[in-house]
């Protein structure tokens, strides 16, 4: 019996030791990076190309270049968007993460609040050439205002209205719409014979947020109060969400099937001449991957309520983009800094942004004529003059989930033929707001 007990005690002790060791990874997270592994880096890239293989092909030669210059080997992993945020959360919790990583710029404030990312103070910015290398609007989406940014801008994007030239010609439309009224009128002309005026991604929560955020701005509403409290049910916010849903519910210029789209099906509809317009960010590379020639589509700034795009209620895009962050627990802090400097240097900025069809958030690289093509000029113009950053609050990611879901459910209602009224929109937003963390 004694032996049995000894064996049992041994087993339990061993397992406790092992589990303590397993949790131990997290306890190291109190520190803020060191240089114990100076010859290697792990880099999590987001999926920017048509697929993950494309990303590897674009990035690997650049990483080889970096290794040649610095002797630091960069281990690349391209993480799909569906996994990226969860992976970062898991890495944050366990303390076992990459050294350098891409984040969606709208997550900056949320991730900043978790303390997982290295803050970019004056000293750190100096190591990569200074803060003023970056475009102002891109810096506006790197964390809570007044705090040191959680990341630096890597690729910039903006929303614009893409239109299918063939479908416009067939419907006898000369000029792409510049205001929402024109868009609805144009859309009605284009919606016939099973074809639709404009496409949406009704089940894609992030895309829903991007669209209603801009419409909210145009109605003079933010989804958060200045002191960071959720404010989803203001008249402007309700009007914005209703206006977006009404493209399907009232004006019927969106095909009902779009309510369940979440995997860029609206872009393939566009490429197949089934949908005449989409509001999208940097769609050029995707159209090409779908077999569309650059001459078959046009792009103009996204619509406003009236007049020309600008600031305030004339905003017509969010500041979309990817930021580059350093994980605070990195074992190669100096190498990570060198890598960020490399990736945000003029040369790499031009190469990478050209490959991905995005715009460099670095002023000196943006001047390159490659970013002044008809496909990119409207995006660059929008970023410079009429794009606004999504709310930089720690609860941004929850906002995307709950309001994005509300919009998804409203699209489902509209598609099922149920009426979408100001009241029903407000009720959905009310419910979304109650799901936000109490403050």
């Amino acid at each position: 019996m004694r032996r049995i007990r000894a064996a049992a005690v041994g087993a339990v002790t061993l397992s406790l030791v092992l589990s303590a060791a397993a949790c131990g990874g997290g306890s190291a997270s109190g520190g803020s990076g060191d240089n114990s592994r100076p010859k290697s880096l792990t880099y999590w890239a987001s999926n920017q190309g048509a697929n993950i293989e494309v990303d590897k092909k674009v990035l690997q030669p650049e990483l080889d270049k970096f290794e040649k210059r610095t002797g630091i080997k960069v281990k690349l992993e391209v993480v799909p968007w569906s996994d990226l945020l969860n992976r970062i959360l898991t890495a944050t919790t366990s303390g076992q993460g990459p050294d350098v990583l891409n984040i969606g710029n709208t997550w900056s404030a949320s991730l900043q609040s978790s303390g997982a990312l290295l803050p970019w103070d004056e000293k750190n910015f100096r190591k990569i050439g200074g803060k003023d290398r970056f475009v102002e609007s891109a810096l506006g989406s790197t964390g809570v205002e007044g705090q040191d940014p959680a990341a630096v801008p890597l690729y910039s994007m903006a929303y614009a209205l893409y239109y299918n030239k063939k479908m416009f010609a067939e419907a006898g439309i000369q000029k792409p719409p510049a205001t929402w009224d024109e868009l609805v009128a144009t859309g009605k002309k284009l919606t016939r014979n099973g074809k639709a005026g404009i496409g949406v991604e009704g089940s894609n929560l992030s895309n829903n947020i991007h669209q209603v955020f801009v419409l909210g701005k145009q109605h003079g509403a933010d989804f958060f109060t200045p002191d960071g409290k959720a404010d989803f049910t203001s008249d402007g916010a309700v009007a914005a969400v209703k206006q977006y849903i009404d493209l399907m519910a009232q004006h019927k210029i969106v095909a009902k099937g779009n309510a369940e789209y979440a995997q860029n099906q609206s872009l393939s509809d566009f490429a197949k001449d089934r949908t005449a317009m989409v509001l999208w960010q940097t769609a050029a590379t995707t159209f090409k991957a779908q077999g569309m020639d650059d001459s078959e589509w046009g792009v103009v700034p996204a619509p406003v309520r009236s007049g020309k795009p600008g600031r305030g209620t004339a905003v017509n895009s969010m500041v979309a983009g990817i930021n580059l962050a350093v994980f605070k627990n990195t074992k190669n802090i100096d190498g990570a800094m060198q890598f960020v400097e490399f990736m945000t240097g003029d040369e790499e900025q031009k190469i990478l942004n050209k490959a991905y069809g995005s715009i460099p958030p670095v002023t000196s690289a943006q001047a390159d004529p490659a970013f002044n093509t008809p496909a990119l000029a409207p995006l660059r113009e929008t970023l410079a003059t009429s794009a606004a950053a999504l709310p930089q609050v720690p609860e941004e990611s929850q906002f995307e989930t709950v309001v994005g879901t509300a919009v998804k459910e409203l699209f489902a209602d509209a598609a099922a033929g149920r009426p979408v009224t100001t009241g029903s929109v407000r009720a959905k937003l009310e419910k979304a707001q109650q799901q936000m963390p109490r403050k």
Partner: protein
Amino acid sequence: MSPDATMTTTAIEKPGGPTALRHDPGAVRGPRRRPGRLRTLGLPYLLLLPALVLELLVHLVPMLIGIVMSFKELTQFFIRDWGTAPWAGLDNYAVSVDFHAPVGEALLNSFLTTCLFTLLSVGLCWLIGTAAAVFMQETFRGRGVLRALFLVPYALPVYAAVITWAFMFQRDNGLINHVLHDQLGLTDSPPFWLIGENSFVTLLVVSVWKGWPFAFLIVMAGLQNIPREIYEAAALDGAGVWQQIRRITLPSLRPVNQVLVLVLFLWTFNDFNTPFVLFGRAAPEAADLVSLHIYQSSFQTWNFGTGSAMSVLLLLFLLVVTGVYLTVTSRGRKSADA
């Protein structure tokens, strides 16, 4: 410390016990008890050691950590260093069970949806599986092929299979609507299957498709243990097929069914993969199963404390159901034996 060891051995001696059931029943197999030297040396315990350690590591320790988490305010501000998260007392539980507030109400809805879904899915899986197994008792040409074919859904990787279903259920380009609407003309307009109310039906179809082969397999194995002579004797006494099924097959399958229904219940109730792959990040309300709901409550709102509290509640519920089920069914069996 010794009670742990004793508990594990008891569970292994009774392969029908809850512990052996919930975790892969094939993974843990104790040596058969034999009087002799080995027993006195405690070798069985030594052999159990790796399993015990892994069991603690893989199941019990995370479970305990989960319980601790449920009492903490583990939001995004503290996930990097859990130690600093303030204790929340019962707050997380209070939020979860406050059915007049949105969080509790949503959890309750999700729970009820899951109950209904589980009831229907387990019932249908069992019915189809048992019916198929009974029919397959007769020898006929092509029986082997059919048997193999029936087991395909069970053998396929869940993700691959459910992604295929998700494609088939797409409104505009899916196979289901192509058949129902385009070819048979049963509906006025192509219905949505992945959003709105129909999503419950979608989930049920995929779940039954995925689950019934397991019932089929287990019942088939059970049937093979019923001696043919009993059927022959019954036939001689003039019992018809239906009577044979009712009087011989079903009572003989009782112990098998007892385990089968419990396992199916636990799997279905806890199913995460099917709704997640079908509906993605935000499941429609009609198909918001509780495991997915908990995932959303923790990973998407970054509030792991509340998510853990919900998990603990779910764990308690399943423990109670399992306990009551085992007590009731084994009491029934004892009285039947008596």
